C-alpha cells in the first residue's frame, strides 16, 4: 500500500481516543477521531476511511445504527468495541454488518491483529481469494477439498469440512453462531447452537494438538468462533 491506511475511531471516551491516536499513529496509520455517532458519520462521508473502529456505547445513537448507516454506502471494515456484559449488542452489530469486535479492556496486540485481518479481507474482497490456508501444522486446500495435519490427510465428514472451510475462508474474523449455522447448515437451524458445540469439538479433536486448549479454533464467548491462521 502506498499511502498509510486511514482509521476513523468513533468513541465518546477522550482517554480511549487519546490512547488509540497515539498507538495507531505510532504504527503509521492515519487516525481521525469522532466523539459521537453523528460526527463519525459526517467525517466518514467527508473523508472515507479504510477502516472504522466504533464504540457501541455512544451517547447520541446506538452503535449498531451507526453500523447500518455506514453499510448503506461503504464496505470498509468496521471493528466494534464494547464491554463484556453486552453480548447481544455485539451480535447485533455483527449482524448489522460490522466485521469484528473487541471487548474492552483490550490489549493493543489484539487490536492491531484485528486491524490487520480486516484490512487483508477488505483488500481481498476485490481480488482473487486464497485457496490454500495454513494454521500451524494444519493445511486446508479449499480448491481440492483436502485437509492435512503435519502432511497427513485428515478425514472429515461433509459437515465438518464445510464448517472448517467456512471458518478458514474467514480466517482471523469472528463468525457469529447464527452466521455459521445459516451458512453451514440452514437458515432454519440458526438457533441450534448445540450443532456448533458438537461439531467444533469433533474438529478440534481431529485438528488441534490439545483439543482442551485449542490454538486455532477459538471460542468467542457468547458471540461465535474464530479461526486463527498463520
Amino acid at each position, binding site marked *: 500500500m502506498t499511502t498509510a491506511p486511514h482509521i476513523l475511531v468513533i468513541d465518546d471516551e477522550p482517554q480511549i481516543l487519546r490512547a488509540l491516536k497515539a498507538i495507531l499513529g505510532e504504527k503509521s496509520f492515519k487516525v481521525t477521531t469522532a466523539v459521537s455517532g453523528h460526527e463519525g458519520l459526517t467525517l466518514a462521508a467527508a473523508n472515507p476511511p479504510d477502516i472504522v473502529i466504533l464504540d457501541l456505547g455512544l451517547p447520541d445513537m446506538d452503535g449498531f445504527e451507526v453500523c447500518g448507516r455506514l453499510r448503506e454506502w461503504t464496505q470498509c471494515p468496521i471493528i466494534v468495541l464494547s464491554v463484556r456484559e453486552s453480548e447481544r449488542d455485539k451480535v447485533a452489530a455483527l449482524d448489522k454488518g460490522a466485521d469484528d469486535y473487541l471487548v474492552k479492556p483490550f490489549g493493543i496486540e489484539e487490536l492491531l491483529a484485528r486491524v490487520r485481518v480486516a484490512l487483508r479481507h477488505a483488500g481481498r474482497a476485490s481480488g482473487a481469494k486464497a485457496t490454500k490456508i495454513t494454521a500451524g501444522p494444519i493445511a486446508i486446500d479449499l480448491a481440492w477439498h483436502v485437509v492435512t495435519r503435519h502432511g497427513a490427510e485428515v478425514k472429515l465428514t461433509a459437515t465438518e469440512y464445510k464448517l472448517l472451510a467456512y471458518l478458514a475462508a474467514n480466517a482471523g474474523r469472528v463468525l457469529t453462531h447464527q452466521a455459521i449455522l445459516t451458512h453451514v447448515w440452514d437458515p432454519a437451524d440458526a438457533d441450534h447452537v448445540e450443532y456448533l458445540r458438537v461439531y467444533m469439538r469433533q474438529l478440534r479433536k481431529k485438528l488441534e494438538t490439545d483439543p482442551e486448549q485449542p490454538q486455532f479454533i477459538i471460542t468467542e464467548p*457468547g458471540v461465535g468462533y474464530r479461526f486463527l491462521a498463520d
Partner: protein
Amino acid sequence: MRRSSFTADFLFHYVPAFLSIAGTTTLLHLLRNTLDTPLIALLYLLPVGASASIWGLGAGIIAALAAFLTFNYFFIPPFFTLIVHSPSDLVVLFVFLIVAVVISQLVGRARAGQAIAIEKARLTEIESRAKVLEESDRLKSALLSSVSHELRTPLATIKAAATSLRSGEVGWDSVARRELLEAVEEEADHLNLLVGNLLNMSRIEANALKPERQWNLLSEIVAAVIARLHHPVEDHRILVAIQEDLPLVPVDFLQMEQVFTNLITNSFKYAQAGTTIRISAQTEGEAEVRVRVENQSPPVPEQDLERIFDKFHRVTAADRITGTGLGLSICKGIIEAHRGRIWAENLSDGFAFNFVLPLSLDGKFAPKLPFESET
C-alpha cells in the same frame, strides 16, 4: 374527636345492628303463625350474633337489647305490649336476653382479638422489613468499604508502575521494566474481573440474573476460562478431567465462565504456589452433572464451610488475602439460578468446591445429532 367517633359508631355500627333486628322482626312477624316461641327466640339469636361479628361488641349488645324488646312486644302474649303474663314466657325472655348478650360478647371479643392479631402481624412485618433494609444497608456499606479498598490496591500498583516507568529511572531493557509492565497488565485484568463480579452481584440482588440456558460443552467453557486467565503457569498447575462423553449441559455460557473463573481465582489465592488445581466433571445418575474444583489449600473450619458462600464472608483476615468476598456468593447465585446446588468440603489433602447442575432443560435432555460418516 370523641364525639365524632361516637357519631361514626352510632351511624355505621349501631344503626345497622338495629336495622338487622327490625328486618328480622318484620320477617318473623309475617311468619308468626308457623313458628312457636322458642323457635322465634332462636332465630332472633342470628342477627344478634351477626351484628356482634360484623359491627363489634357494642352493636351486638344493642342488637341483643332490641331483640329482647321486640321479641317481648310482638311475640309474647299479650301481643303489642311489654307486659308478660305467663311465668314460663318470662323465663324464655330472660334466658334469651342472657344468651344474646353472652353471644354478642363472645363474638365481639373474638373479632377484636382478630383485629389485634392482624395489627400485630402488620407491625411484625414492618419491623422485619426495617430489619431487612437495615441489613441491606449494612451490606451496602460493607460492599463500599470492601470495594474501595479492593479498587485502590490495583490502582496503587498501576500508578506506581506507570510513574516509575515515566520517570526514566528504569532502563529500557531491564527486568524491572518488564515486571512493572506485567504488574500493570495483571492489575488491569484484576480490576476488570472485579467489575464483572460487581455487576453480577447487583443483578443477583435485583433478581435480574436470568441465565440464557443453551446446550453447551463444559469442557469448552473451562477451556475458554483457562485461556483468559493469564495466570503465570509456574504458579499453579491446572488439570482438567472432564468425562469424555459428558452430554451437553443446558447452561448460560458466560455465567458459567464467571463461576469457573471465580472458583479458580479463589483457588489461586488460597492454595500455595506450585500446587495443582484439578477441575473434573461427570454425570451423576441420569439427570445431573457433578463438577468439582479441587485445590491443595489448607482446610476451612467446618463451621465456615457454608458461610464462605455468604456475601463478604472471608475466612482469612482481610489484610492477608485480597478479595471482596463476592466471588463465591456470585457462584452460588448463578448455580442456584440454574437450579443447581453448590457446596464446599475439606479433603484429606486439600479443599474442594462441588456443584451439580441439571442435565435437562424444560424437561428435555440434550438433543442427539445424527451420525455422519467421514468421506
